């Protein structure tokens, strides 16, 4: 081997090693899912969600406390099944199950978008449960850190003054609507830098959105859902009023009824 070719080989070996580093660390991160999987979804092995369930998230988030996540359900026409539940998991968050969305009668196509806290570089994954029990999973890697402990954007006094205020906006042209509930959604990991104490966890753990008697979706949420929980979802008004009911971890219930056309 000539000196020149040795240099080339060593350059390529170095480059290959460098390229391997990220893939190795990614492989390592998957260990967390292996550890929590059975607790989150049981023993069933989920199928590849490609083409049925899409998860859109930034690969590098600007603000780890409000990382936008979008879930898109698209069950193929030749599949009779419907999606009845979507579980959103942030592997490396200390409470990895961010939210569980129930779609009562099941959906063939449905979009849901929200904002979550991300504590360290992680896979974010979604698992769709079909009405016949089949599971499909999709995942994406997000580089963001410190989202669970980041101080609240609003001061506690303002947050309390507006606690439980709700908005329901309809975007008929896009075929969706947005629900927002004012709540600090404290994760329990945020320190008040003035008092130097952790603010206790306090967040919306149940949300129910109905049109007339029909539940559009309901959600069970954890500490990963961002301050002022916001959900944008596929919506077509029937003209009936929309009821939003939220409950927080202190048992407070917030309820408001809106016209089906929004505010």
């Amino acid at each position, binding site marked *: 081997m000539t000196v020149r070719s040795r*240099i*080339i080989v060593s*350059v390529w070996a*170095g*480059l290959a090693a*460098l390229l391997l*580093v990220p893939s190795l660390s990614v492989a390592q991160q998957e260990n*967390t899912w292996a*550890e*929590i999987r059975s*607790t*989150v979804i049981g023993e069933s092995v989920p199928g590849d969600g490609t083409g049925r369930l899409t998860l859109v998230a930034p690969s590098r988030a600007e603000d780890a406390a409000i990382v936008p996540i979008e879930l898109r359900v698209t069950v193929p026409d030749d599949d009779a099944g419907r999606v009845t539940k979507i579980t959103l998991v942030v592997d*490396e968050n*200390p*409470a*990895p*199950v961010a939210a569980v969305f129930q779609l009562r009668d099941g959906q063939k196509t449905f979009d849901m978008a929200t904002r979550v806290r991300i*504590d*360290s*570089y992680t896979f974010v994954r979604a698992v769709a449960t079909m009405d016949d029990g089949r599971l499909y999973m999709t995942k994406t890697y997000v580089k963001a*850190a*410190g989202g*669970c*402990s*980041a*101080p609240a954007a609003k001061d506690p006094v303002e947050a309390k003054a507006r606690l439980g205020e709700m908005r329901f906006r309809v975007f008929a042209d896009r075929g969706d609507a947005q629900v927002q509930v004012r709540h600090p959604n404290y*994760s*329990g*990991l945020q*320190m008040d*830098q003035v008092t*130097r*104490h*952790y603010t*206790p*966890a*306090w967040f919306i*753990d149940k949300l129910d959105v109905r049109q007339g008697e029909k539940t559009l979706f309901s959600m069970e949420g*954890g*500490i990963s859902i961002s301050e002022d929980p916001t959900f944008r979802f596929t919506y077509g008004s029937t003209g009936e009023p929309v009821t939003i009911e939220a409950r927080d*971890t202190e048992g407070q219930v917030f309820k408001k009824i809106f016209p089906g056309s929004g505010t």
Partner: protein
Amino acid sequence: MSARHRTGQAWECSVLIWLLAGPGAYAQAPPEPEGYRLEEYRAPTPLTLKGATVIGTPEAEALWRQGNAVFIDVMPQPQRPANLPAGTLWHAPSRDSIPRAVWLPNVGYGVLTPETEAYFRHGLSVAAQADHSRPLVLFCQRNCWMSWNAAKRALRYGYSVVYWYPEGTDGWKDAGLPVERAERSP
């Protein structure tokens, strides 16, 4: 030599420089702040820390093999809030660290609770066997201000020989050095 060869050589050369400099060298290092870093801990760190010696992996390895310095891992680990709803799945990420390092999580935040402050002082004192001249090596992972904050804090506590190892376990693992599962110090 043909033009094609020259281009190839130039390209190989630039790859080599990039490899030597390390991809991190392309992210700009911020200047050293006066106080502690208070937010966005996962970001490029300064090249310096006043009063401390900044070391790379070869120096860290030498200190580790020599065995006198105490390695302090400050990688954060969230603690379960007392009032989470029953049944909430809690899974604090595990930590693979430099063998024999003492893991003192959460001591690298910009502001500490009085309890965490006491935990850090006590943890360092036990690890250094109450000897303030015992060399300390503080680290977490690459682009993590927590080790910078913690090293600054150790200096404030009166430790006189403080090494800051900014590459942390990332640099350590990249060099093929061993890591082992760490348990947080009680």
